[in-house]
């Protein structure tokens, strides 16, 4: 009898020890990331010229919620400096920068992947009024304290954004305009 009563008490008491979590799944805190420093540089190639245009004026923000992080990086097209003001103005004209002044990049990453030394990203780039999707773009990450130093190259091309290749002496520039990315992100 005593055993039965103890058993019954335990059975009634069992539910009180059941997990109380409202939703199952790993609990990761919401987090916001801000782009602290950046260097974006495009490379243009022609038989007579090799040009790199560099921008340090990019802005970025990342919001992590429910285990997923959404990042946005944006820079003004006119902030890219190739060292020649005339060339930069022509670049703005060719890339329709007066009509579409911002180039932006969006990507989504699992929050758990933010500590990985290599980030495999699918990114969407909006530039010159068009959007291009790049899959499996690899970025290398070095974590120094709270700062995440990320480097990589986006394999952009002129045709991705429907940009007509400018010519010099009737020879067009190469279609490939890879954009090298060097960023430092810090949690907000």
């Amino acid at each position, binding site marked *: *009898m005593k055993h*039965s*009563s103890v*058993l*019954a008490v335990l*059975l*009634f008491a*069992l*539910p009180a020890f*059941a*997990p*109380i*979590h*409202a*939703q*199952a799944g790993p609990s990761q805190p*919401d987090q*916001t990331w801000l782009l602290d420093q950046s260097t974006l540089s495009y490379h243009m190639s022609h*038989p*007579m*010229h*090799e040009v790199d245009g560099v921008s340090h004026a990019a*802005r*970025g*923000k*990342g*919001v992590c*919620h429910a285990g997923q992080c*959404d990042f*946005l990086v*944006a820079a*003004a097209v006119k902030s890219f400096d*190739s*060292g*020649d*003001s*005339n*060339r930069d*103005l*022509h670049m*703005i*004209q*060719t890339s*329709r920068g*007066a*009509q*579409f*002044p*911002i180039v*932006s990049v*969006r990507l*989504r990453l699992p929050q758990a992947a933010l500590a990985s030394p290599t980030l495999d990203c699918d990114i*969407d780039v*909006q530039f010159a*009024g*068009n*959007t291009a*999707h790049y899959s499996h773009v690899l970025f290398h990450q070095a974590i120094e304290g709270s700062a995440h130093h990320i480097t990589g190259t986006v394999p952009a091309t002129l045709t991705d954004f429907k940009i007509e290749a400018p010519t*010099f002496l009737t020879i067009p520039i190469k279609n490939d305009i890879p954009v090298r990315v060097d960023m430092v992100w810090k949690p*907000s």
Partner: protein
Amino acid sequence: MKTHEWMRARWAGFFIGGISLALLCGAARPATAQQDGAPGVTLAALADSPTLPDAPLPVAPADSALERAAAQSSNASPSAQSPAQGSQPPTQGEPTPPGAPSLGDLGLTPADTEGSAARQAIMDRRTHMLKLHQRLGLITVIPVAAACISAVGAPPEHGNYGNTTSRDIHVALGATAVAMYAWTASYAIRAPKVSNEHARGGVKWHKYLIYIHAPGMVLTPILGAMAFNQINSGQKVHGIASAHAGVAAATAISYGAAIIAVSWPIHLKF
């Protein structure tokens, strides 16, 4: 005996009831975490609904970063995003995920994100005119070079002022060079100005060299005409007219340097 059996049945009932209650409480855990009504009602609703309701969003403390970010997102002018989308074609098939940051969140104002088709049209016209300037400038190299080459035979040889053929060819080529130069320059002068920024890079030297070849292109034909008249009147070229060759050479060299400067740096790789 009857009492024992009754007691046993009673405890068996408790046992079965306890197990049943434990099972039901485990399944009902997600709902009971959020409900504040009668447990019975919640359980009944759960039994009917196929999907579980979401947990309520956490309420950020006042003046927290989360609340500031949310306020910034909600207060961001719609023009910070939609005109960017309006003047830029809507992202094709790529809507902004809910909760993802927007251009306004980055501190970009409508002035930063709004484009202008009118300004783009001006830039297009500028590029078109400068392309013509470039093309004509390269073509002008031909009569300039030809005039320089024909200058070898322009002076009278050994006092022979009668043969004017070489001189006439030189005059014609020189006049053509000046006319082409003026036509070339007109496109650069009339091209719309889109920036007040100081010239940087090779184009800076291209603009500086204007101060040499532009007055040179004016002086050279004037001095050449003076020299031509002196020769035609049987005189040896003298005075300021004798500077015609030097001024022409300096003009031609600075013109060639201006063409190279605007393309600098040049990396030849074929």
